[in-house]
């Protein structure tokens, strides 16, 4: 009877997986830099490094002179094609500062480069930021709710904080279950940066 119940559960789980009609076809590793050195502005710099198959498709579509590099004219075409889609998806980034959700309309310094065989997108998110409280908490989630792209935050080596000497910080990376998606089967990795200022 146990096998029977397990079998029914398995059939349900495997077939119900199809309900949202998407599965990851693009994979990207995410690095995040927090730049706290700019006056009144927090810059969150992201780098999305795509896997080799996705990288090859991007080059196939946009590297018109086939030199394995996205040159300025090719970059313009790529930007016009990619940025509206990213904007529509809010750059796949949830940003919360002191429990307040920040809505981002623009990204800055968008570039596309290659590192060995991998293509990456790099861009900045700029948010007005004054370090007035004794403690500031910045939470970032990078994920695709539709699960067409799977983002892997590089928690081991991909997080960096650029700061002045009077700021202390701690970084925590954990799964945020409250933002579970895809029938609750996935949760994004949340990066929580807590800042304290020396008096």
């Amino acid at each position: 009877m146990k096998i029977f119940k397990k079998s029914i559960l398995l059939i349900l789980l495997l077939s119900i997986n199809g309900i949202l009609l998407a599965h990851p076809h693009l994979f990207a590793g995410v690095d995040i830099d927090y730049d706290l050195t700019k006056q009144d502005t927090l810059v969150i710099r992201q780098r999305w490094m795509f896997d080799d198959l996705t990288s090859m498709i991007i080059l196939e579509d946009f590297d018109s002179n086939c030199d394995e590099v996205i040159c300025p004219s090719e970059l313009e075409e790529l930007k016009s094609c990619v940025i509206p889609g990213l904007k529509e998806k809010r750059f796949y980034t949830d940003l919360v500062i002191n429990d307040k959700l920040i809505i981002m309309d623009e990204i800055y310094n968008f570039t596309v480069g290659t590192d060995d065989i991998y293509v990456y997108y790099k861009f900045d998110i700029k948010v007005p930021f004054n370090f007035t409280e004794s403690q500031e908490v910045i939470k970032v989630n990078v994920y695709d709710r539709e699960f067409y792209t799977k983002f892997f935050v590089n928690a081991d080596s991909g997080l960096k904080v650029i700061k002045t000497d009077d700021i202390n910080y701690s970084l925590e990376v954990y799964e945020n279950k409250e933002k579970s998606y895809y029938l609750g089967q996935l949760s994004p990795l949340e990066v929580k940066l807590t800042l304290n200022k020396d008096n």
Partner: protein
Amino acid sequence: MKRLFLLALLFFIISLSGQFSREFNTRRDLETQVGEEKQVTQQVSEKSFLEKNTEQQRDLRQNISKTLREFKSNRSKKVLFIALGIAFLYGIVHSIGPGHGKVFLVSQVLGSEVKYGAIIASSLVFAFLHSLSGLTLVAILKVMSMSLFRESAKFSIIAQNISFVILIGLGFFILLKAIFSKTEEQKHTHQGRNLFVTAIMIGFVPCPGSIIIAVYAMKMGVYSTGLLMVLAMALGMAFTLIALNSLTLFVKSMATLTLANQGNIKRISRVMTIIGSSLLILLGSLFLFTSLTS
């Protein structure tokens, strides 16, 4: 022999099911670095089945591109076989993940009087169509010098929506036939054919996984190897579908035998047909609605 095959199949699938367990409260610290002014802590819960599946897909894709590059440089038969083996495994893992219309085939196996032979044949038809339609799309887009990245996604959505409409129609056809047919023979004729029609309809939607492999192989200049890899991947997908649908049929047969005596088997079969076709209509409508509104 048949029992042995089923038991082996069941064991294989149930061994996969262990991956489904998700312990929400189990947390482990992977890394803690404490410095003078910084502390980095990473806490990761036990991974869900889908997360594991996604990571396996990513790893297999990396291996596919690595072996294709290796094959390009040395043209070794050994590397070719390894590449085909990886593509086969990728097909299995890829189709265990979301999508691929598994739910439609399961609903048809549940609602129709089909045999294992029909399941194997329709799963193969689906998997090869699903992969080859991806290859055909790549060839068409390439000949027309259109963007693979953008246009393949657009075409897939159109194909998908057409499939849903046809599947909804098929669901209504089966449902009405089950309700209004006067004789039992009329109710149960062509049920195996319905499974095939469903397989063809969902197979018509190109598989993005095979599109990506085909483009990669094309870019590397190893066309025939790319084709072989897509076929190996299709075989892997068929393997998963055969396993899942056979399990569904096995469970259905067990349930029918447990619940029914000889007198009401026909009634149960009719109810199953109505449930199966209703699922086809409901799921087709739900998917179509989701696709049109997203």
